[in-house]
């Protein structure tokens, strides 16, 4: 039984695995591939966008700075030194060139670092300061043209300057760039809320404030952008970085795009795919589970039916074999029995001829002869019953009302039952059709079953007799008792001839065998089982045969 259960569990499991492999696995793999493909496409697109944006920004910023350099160079080449050393002239020039507000101030410094003119808001702070030691100043004198890093200087505000010298390097013309204007150029390049655009110098120091308000770069970012990757962009787990050198490699423009920012659409799509996959998986898994379980249930059911049918066939076959065997044995025994009774009879015939005075134990001999005859008769009764000879030669057909037959049978045993305090409960269906059958033989079966039930109950109990109209035009009669039931190992042998659990001499073991035989001949079936409540129940199923039809 346990093995059988395991077998059906295995079937269920295999079916489930098959269903899983055939339905869910493909869906999930497809969804997974789709997800990866969409993600990858998205990154490639973002990379392209980043590259084109940085190209454009590089151009704009370089152009901006070049414009300022060109402007200052133009002033130096057009105006003589004396003109530029005059503050009024500088003011005029500043007003003329700074209509857009790109420049914060304009300053003229001679080669030794002394100021010769300043136009701008920081006049007071830089008054009287010399620039001979300022790094940007020295760099300008060396290179002729210079764009400084961001520094604080005398004015205490971070800023950067564009400066040029005259060809003879006698003075420096310097302009401070409007940081907010310059930063705006960068910040318009921002890609997404977590994107960033900033400029670092070669040392990795931020030259423009990033959009994310960080004072300086993280170590990983510094490392990531420490090399020039003009051709390709750098993709990390969360971000895409694109970098371009500007101002002849002096500064590095960095554009950072956050992948998650641009993934909005993709993420929604992915969530939807996952949701759909999960729903489909749940539906198909439940369907598969349902199908597998019900399929294996069906298997189990039909296997059981098949086994039961097989058992039934085996029982019929066995009973037929046993019947033939018993008949054969009975036949072989009858001849010797006849000889025994004849020989005893012969002794009985001869004894009266003897002289009684010569035979000491004449009475004993006569008694022995009678006993031999008696026991032969007993044995003969058994062989005759086995051979069915005591039964009618042919089944007679008459219209029988089962309920009446049962009532009549009960009347035979009522006295014995009430003597043992056994209550016979009738539970007889009304309006049962009468059937053409052999009433006396059927009654023999009923009587046998009721007697067995009385024996099984012993004392103080109940016998229930239940009749009903069953499926396929059959009459069903059940005899249930409140006894101890039939031991499971005995159920198989119940209808075998000579199988008895009664005390020796009390039962021949032929009652149920003959009952079985009779019911079989009447076209019905008889089965025995134990009730859940404990007692045994015998069920007879008989066909309803209407007058004139044959079995």
């Amino acid at each position: 039984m346990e093995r059988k259960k395991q077998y059906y569990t295995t079937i269920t499991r295999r079916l489930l695995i098959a269903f899983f492999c055939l339905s869910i696995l493909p869906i999930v793999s497809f969804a997974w591939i789709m997800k990866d493909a969409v993600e990858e496409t998205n990154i490639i697109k973002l990379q392209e966008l980043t590259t084109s944006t940085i190209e454009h920004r590089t151009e704009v910023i370089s152009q901006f700075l070049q414009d300022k350099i060109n402007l200052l160079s133009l002033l130096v080449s057009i105006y003589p030194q004396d003109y530029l050393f005059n503050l009024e002239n500088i003011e005029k020039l500043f007003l003329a060139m700074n209509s857009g507000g790109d420049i914060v101030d304009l300053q003229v410094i001679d080669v030794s670092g002394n100021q010769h003119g300043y136009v701008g808001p920081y006049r007071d702070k830089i008054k009287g300061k010399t620039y001979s030691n300022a790094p940007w100043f020295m760099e300008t004198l060396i290179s002729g043209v210079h764009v400084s890093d961001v520094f604080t200087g005398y004015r205490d505000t971070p800023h950067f300057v564009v400066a040029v010298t005259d060809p003879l390097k006698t003075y420096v013309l310097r302009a401070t760039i409007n940081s907010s204007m310059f930063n705006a150029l960068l910040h318009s390049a921002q890609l997404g809320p977590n994107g960033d655009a900033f400029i670092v110098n070669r040392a990795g120091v931020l030259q423009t404030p990033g959009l994310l308000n960080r004072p300086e770069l993280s170590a990983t970012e510094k490392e990531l952008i420490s090399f020039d990757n003009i051709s390709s962009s750098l993709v990390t787990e969360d971000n895409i970085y694109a970098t371009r050198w500007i101002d002849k490699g002096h500064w590095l423009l960095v554009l950072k795009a956050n992948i998650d920012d641009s993934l909005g659409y993709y993420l929604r799509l992915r969530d939807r795919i996952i949701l759909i996959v999960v729903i489909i998986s749940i539906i198909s898994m439940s369907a598969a589970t349902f199908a597998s379980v019900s399929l294996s249930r069906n298997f189990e059911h039909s296997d059981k039916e098949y086994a039961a049918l097989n058992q039934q066939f085996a029982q019929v076959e066995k009973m037929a074999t046993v019947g033939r065997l018993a008949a054969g044995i009975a036949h072989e025994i009858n001849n010797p029995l006849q000889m025994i009774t004849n020989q005893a009879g012969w002794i009985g015939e001869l004894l009266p001829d003897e002289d009684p005075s010569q035979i000491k134990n004449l009475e004993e001999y006569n008694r022995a002869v009678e006993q031999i005859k008696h026991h032969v008769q007993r044995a003969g009764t058994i062989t005759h019953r086995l051979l069915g000879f005591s039964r009618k030669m042919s089944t007679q057909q008459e219209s029988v009302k089962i309920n009446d037959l049962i009532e009549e049978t009960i009347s035979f045993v009522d006295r014995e039952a009430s003597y043992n305090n056994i209550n016979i409960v009738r539970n007889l269906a009304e309006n049962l059709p009468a059937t053409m059958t052999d009433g006396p033989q059927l009654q023999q079966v009923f009587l046998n079953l009721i007697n067995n039930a009385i024996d099984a109950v012993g004392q103080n109990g109940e016998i229930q007799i239940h009749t009903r109209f069953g499926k396929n035009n059959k009459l069903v009669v059940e005899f249930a008792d409140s006894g101890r039931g039939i031991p499971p190992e005995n159920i198989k042998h119940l209808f075998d001839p000579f199988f008895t659990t009664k005390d020796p001499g009390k039962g021949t073991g032929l009652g149920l065998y003959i009952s079985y035989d009779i019911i079989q001949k009447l076209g019905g079936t008889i089965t025995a089982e134990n009730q859940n409540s404990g007692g045994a129940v015998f069920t007879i199923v008989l066909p309803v045969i209407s007058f004139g039809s044959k079995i």
Partner: protein
Amino acid sequence: MMHEFSVLVVDDEEEFRDLTVRILLKRGLSARGAASGQEALEILESSHTDVVLLDVKMPGIDGIETLGEIRKRKPLIEVVLLTGHASVESGIDGMKLGAFDYLMKPIEIESLLDKLEQAYEKKRLQQEKIEQAQIKKHMAMPG
């Protein structure tokens, strides 16, 4: 009071046949044995017999066939069938063919004798009827 009549015991089993014959003789009947159907038919041709005790199952021509022959040749002789086996069909066949009764082994000698006597009684009554009919016939045809 038992009438004296003659019985032919037909059985292939010698011990049974001889013992039965001896018992019948002891009871004052006239009895003979025959080991086969063939032999029985020969004896019936040559000597007087009232009742035949016939075993159904024998080698050669069996009881039922023998019965048929007896009924054909000697319709007045009554036949009691005796068998050790349970063939209900052969019993029915036997009765149809006109056997007096069908007995099942083992049967006590008393019961057997009763049955044989009943058979003889039937035969005797029938014979009487026939004889009376013949007398009537003779009386109806004087001279």
